[in-house]
């Protein structure tokens, strides 16, 4: 009886960890989507306004997107750790 409860508790804990990891991954992706979407949108707008500055704008766009991506991927890696542990 006691062992059954303990096993069930462990399974529930694992499932909860997986659920948490999934929700965390989703939230991180929502944030990154908003951030990178805004960067892309604004960059395209800026290039449309000033096509001659497109090289500088593209460089700044990739740099900022990479910074956002770094934070997101950190979140994803930590979420993945829950799956592996």
């Amino acid at each position, binding site marked *: 009886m006691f062992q059954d409860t303990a096993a069930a508790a462990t399974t529930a804990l694992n499932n909860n960890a997986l659920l948490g990891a999934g929700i965390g991954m989703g939230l991180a992706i929502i944030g990154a989507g908003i951030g990178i979407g805004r960067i892309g949108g604004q960059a395209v707008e800026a290039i449309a306004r000033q096509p001659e500055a497109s090289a500088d704008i593209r460089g700044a766009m990739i740099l900022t997107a*990479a910074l956002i991506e770094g*934070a997101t*991927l950190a979140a994803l*890696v930590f979420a993945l750790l829950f799956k592996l542990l």
Partner: protein
Amino acid sequence: MMLQEKPDIGEMIMHHTSDAHEIAFESPFGGALFTIHLPQWEPIHIGKLVLDLSPTKHVVFMLLAAFLVWLTMYLTGRSLQKQREAGEAPHGLASMFESMVLFVRNDVAVANIGHGGEKFAPYIMTLFFFILYMNLLGLMPWGATATGNLAVTGGLALTAGLTIEISGMRALGPAGYIRTIVFAPPGTTGITKWLLTAIMIPVEVIGKLVKPFALCLRLFANMTAGHFVILSLLGLIFLFGTGPALIRWGVAGGSVFFVLFMMALELLVAFLQAYIFSLLTSVFIGLMQHEH
């Protein structure tokens, strides 16, 4: 062919992306054509530290990437020299790599480090080509992505972090370097100034540590995530392998199409991540050089 047991996709993905002590050349029709077993050496004990220095799959592919970087640069340099002596314009291999080298030197290193960026150009170019080759080797059949290993990206990020800090120390001098950590925000006086300085010290130190950490994690996660997506899509075929024929064929066709798309995207990501790693390293070096 019906599958006897439920396929373990997670295990398959881990097997393909993680490091191993052997390089298996698997046949597309199942089984391995041949397997290279890498030697396993006795771990070295340094005090309490146990170091296993035996070569693994990722080490082999990293050394291969290093050799390929040397080979391309050697051949390019030789053909460029020949063409220069003959008085011709660069063509062929020399022309191809000249454009890439010039891009990395002018648009990545010098443009972001600012004046004095030329002396960092060899380091930035080495980073770019080394990471590029490691990424591309992972897309080859039977290849392994050395950059999909935290130890490899961590080592690269360590050299980047040391370069950033030491070049900053040399450019700013001891007092100038201390000022990048202990820094009074302008426009503050009295108690506010001291309080803000005390608050900013840990923030600045964390900022210094986060830069290489983010570089390391970004490269690792990007390369691993791409392979995860490709392998999960291929795994879908086996998950639906017991369904009716229409679903089986539909899922297989869709998976292969998406895998083709992801592979093309991975090719772009391989270049993009090499570019971003070298770009961010030069931006951080530039930030430290011109901190005033």
